[in-house]
């Protein structure tokens, strides 16, 4: 089932399907401690297999994880998109930012765009994110995206928290959406200097 992966553009970012040339950045993160909340660190072989599976996911599900690039320099910054391997109870909205690019709102900007795309183009009526309870950056990002802890939803294996995103009707045109776009605009402002601890 050949699939053509749409290109999404935002103020600062361009999102394309994962390509072989973007693998080195994926590898350096997934073979490191940074991947501890995503089943890592992995060895070289496992990392390659996972990256190939990220591509295969698109062909099986018709959606998947995009590679986030800086739209000016084309530098790969991380990944965001939909993820649903076999044992996931529901399709997940997932993100990961390469360590050297964290703290600039890229995950927020990319995930906000892919959520809207999955809602509008793929008919998703809801979305969850499965987050390790120790992954504070991801919990904060889920909350900034307007997601709320859903204690009634099935978890992957009991070791994760389920955050449920606002449904399309609760999101589009809402104050939540407006607030996210304000925050992204602040990050995109060259004079804006985030205060406090780095956040994705």
């Amino acid at each position, binding site marked *: 089932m050949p699939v053509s992966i749409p290109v999404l553009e935002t103020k600062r970012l361009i999102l*394309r399907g994962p390509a072989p040339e973007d693998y080195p950045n994926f590898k350096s993160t997934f073979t490191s401690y940074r991947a501890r909340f995503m089943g890592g660190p992995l060895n070289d*072989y496992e*990392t390659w297999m*996972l990256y*190939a599976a990220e591509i295969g*996911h698109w062909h*099986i599900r018709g959606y998947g994880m995009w590679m986030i690039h800086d739209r000016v320099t084309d530098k790969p910054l991380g990944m965001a998109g939909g993820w649903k*391997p076999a044992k996931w109870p529901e399709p997940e909205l997932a993100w990961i930012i390469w360590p050297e690019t964290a703290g600039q709102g890229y995950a927020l900007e990319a995930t906000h765009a892919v959520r809207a795309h999955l809602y509008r183009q793929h008919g998703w009526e809801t979305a969850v994110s499965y987050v390790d309870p120790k992954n504070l950056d991801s919990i904060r990002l889920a909350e900034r995206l307007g997601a709320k802890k859903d204690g009634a939803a099935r978890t992957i294996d009991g070791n994760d928290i389920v955050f449920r995103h606002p449904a399309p009707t609760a999101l589009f045109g809402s104050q939540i959406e407006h607030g996210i776009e304000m925050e992204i605009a602040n990050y995109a402002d060259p004079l804006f200097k985030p205060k406090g601890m780095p956040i994705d």
Partner: protein
Amino acid sequence: MSVTITIPRLETERLILRAPGPQDFDVFAGFYASDRAKFVGGPLDREGSWRMLAMEIGHWHMAGFGRWIVTPKSGDNAGETAGLVGLFAPEGWPEPEIGWDLFDGHEGKGYATEAAIAARAYAYDVLCWPTAISLVKPANDGSARVCQRLGCTRDDDFDHPRHGTVQVWRHPAPDTLVNGGMEAYS
């Protein structure tokens, strides 16, 4: 810039080799859950099998080649998902490999050999591989016999971090095969 690759379709006398897809998942998961998968990284649960199938598809996009689903052209099992045979070279592999897994009920018919000959001809004639190996776990006698039928000879064993010690079988070089084996597929 993401490249869309078209996975070629090959034909042999009795078999069609086509792209793996979602429709193969149940057979694939059944095989990987079984004891027969112990020589090829199994047994795996459904999650592991799903990721493996996604990886096999993604392999084509990463490497420009990969493994095909083998289906018989005719007979009682025509069109069934009978096996996974082809070219495999993830990171950490000693060299690009010709590999084969036959799913339950499709063993003993010579399908692995027939499909591997077509895959080898594709590797040599289309991809211009100068050589090829096949990896076989010790005690996987069925697979070692396929290697012998394909004219392979033993090289030094290889130690893999996940799969342990595996036998390396080296295929005859392209110039020692008649017409490079071109007649093996159409």
